């Protein structure tokens, strides 16, 4: 050890307070974004009804009837989404992956979490734009929700894009749950991480199934029994 190399310490607000921002990033992924994902997938289950136009419309109508709905949307969805997405890209930029050399499972998980995060961000921005802002206003016309979404799903390319988005967001969220437990010191022992990993896998598969079931139902394909 000949030299006392002085490594440049990253400066700037984000670097100096990176503990706070990293943990906020980790937390926003679970609450509120993960919690919203649960709500969103459950609400979309309304399409599994035998009368999907009414059920789906009623769900959209109910959600838009919530008091302070715009404040809730901004504070619980858009702001955390923008932060988690943009800061997530910043984190991904710092990565120096070495998967070809070290092909361990966790190392692939590390790489996929960054890749899926980027793809999911693109998907969500597109989805929010086309479903919430472009075209007919669903808060004003909730009972057009079904036909608006069904029109999208009729295009096989858009349907495929939805299936990709649903699968990747389910993966990103469930692996995020696994990582959250380690980063907040919940799963300290290898056994705890292994068990929690299995639970996260089941949660991820459950989300993927539920999301795909709803998307396909718009095409009249039912992989889940109609209610």
């Amino acid at each position, binding site marked *: *050890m*000949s*030299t*006392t*190399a002085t*490594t*440049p*310490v*990253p*400066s700037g607000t984000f*670097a*100096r307070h*990176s*503990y706070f921002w*990293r*943990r906020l990033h980790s937390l926003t992924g679970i609450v509120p974004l993960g919690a919203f994902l649960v709500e969103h997938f459950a609400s979309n289950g309304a399409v599994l009804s035998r009368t999907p136009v009414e059920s789906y419309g009623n769900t959209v109508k109910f959600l838009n009837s919530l008091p302070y709905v715009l404040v809730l949307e901004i504070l619980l969805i858009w702001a955390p989404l923008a932060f988690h997405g943009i800061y997530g890209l910043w*984190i991904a*930029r*710092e*990565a*120096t*992956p*070495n998967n070809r*050399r*070290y092909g*361990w*499972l*966790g*190392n692939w*998980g*590390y*790489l996929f*979490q960054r890749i899926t995060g980027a793809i999911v961000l693109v998907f969500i921005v597109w989805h929010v734009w086309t479903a919430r802002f472009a075209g007919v206003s669903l808060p004003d016309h909730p009972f057009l929700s079904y036909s608006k979404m069904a029109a999208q799903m009729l295009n096989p390319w858009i349907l495929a894009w939805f299936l990709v988005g649903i699968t990747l967001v389910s993966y990103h969220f469930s692996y995020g749950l696994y*990582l959250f437990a*380690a*980063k*907040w*010191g*919940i*799963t*300290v*022992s*290898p056994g705890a*991480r292994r068990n929690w990993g299995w639970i996260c896998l089941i949660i991820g598969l459950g989300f993927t199934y539920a999301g795909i079931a709803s998307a396909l139902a718009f095409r009249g394909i039912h992989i889940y029994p109609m209610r």
Partner: protein
Amino acid sequence: MPANTVRLRIKRQAGPQAPPVWEEFEIPYRPHMNVIVALRDIAENPVTRDGRPTSTIAYEANCLEEVCGACAMVINGRARQACTALVDRLEQPISLEPLHRFPMIRDLQVDRSKLFNDLRRVKAWVPIDGTYALGSGPRQSPQDQEQAYPLSRCISCGNCLEVCPQYNTRTDYVGAAVINQVRLFNLHPTGKMHRAARLDALTGPGGIQECGYAENCVKACPKDIPLTDSIAAVNRQMVGHLWGKALGR
């Protein structure tokens, strides 16, 4: 290839700025030889496989029994200690590269100062200096001893840092070895007295938050230290510590 020789491909670099070049060597086989023995034999007669005299290869090694940590390098694509890399168990030609994550000095020798500076940054020691004899410290429970021993086996070789995708100049991350030392010394009855200072140091730039939990460190550790447990355990200490700082203990 005759069975009584050993072939090696070595990535060489004359200095930090020099371009890397691969050189191939073929040396006589010795029973039970390891990579350090091979490097020593090349040093005795630094001639490449095609008979061209070359400069001696710079490398670090000391204890030859996987205790000092000095001889970490990338052998056949994997970060490990050269002293415990037995030629009999390696596919030939054996490729040797320096660790990539540390500043290059020459050939297989790198500057691991950052690791030692980071250990200093987190006060990875037990404070005993004073103006008078402090007497014996509190006893450590057998349970804590049992937990501390595996953590204490760290040889500061840097293999966990070499395989870590977050250990780079962009993050300035301290890495698994340093976080494990924080866990070790926070467990020590006298070391506990610096617990808060160590945890504070780990919330600074390059602190524990930079861990991406790829879990490569624990796979690469030659001493089987439960590094991913240590990171999670220190994360737990951190939550309690910062909660206490914000709202009172």
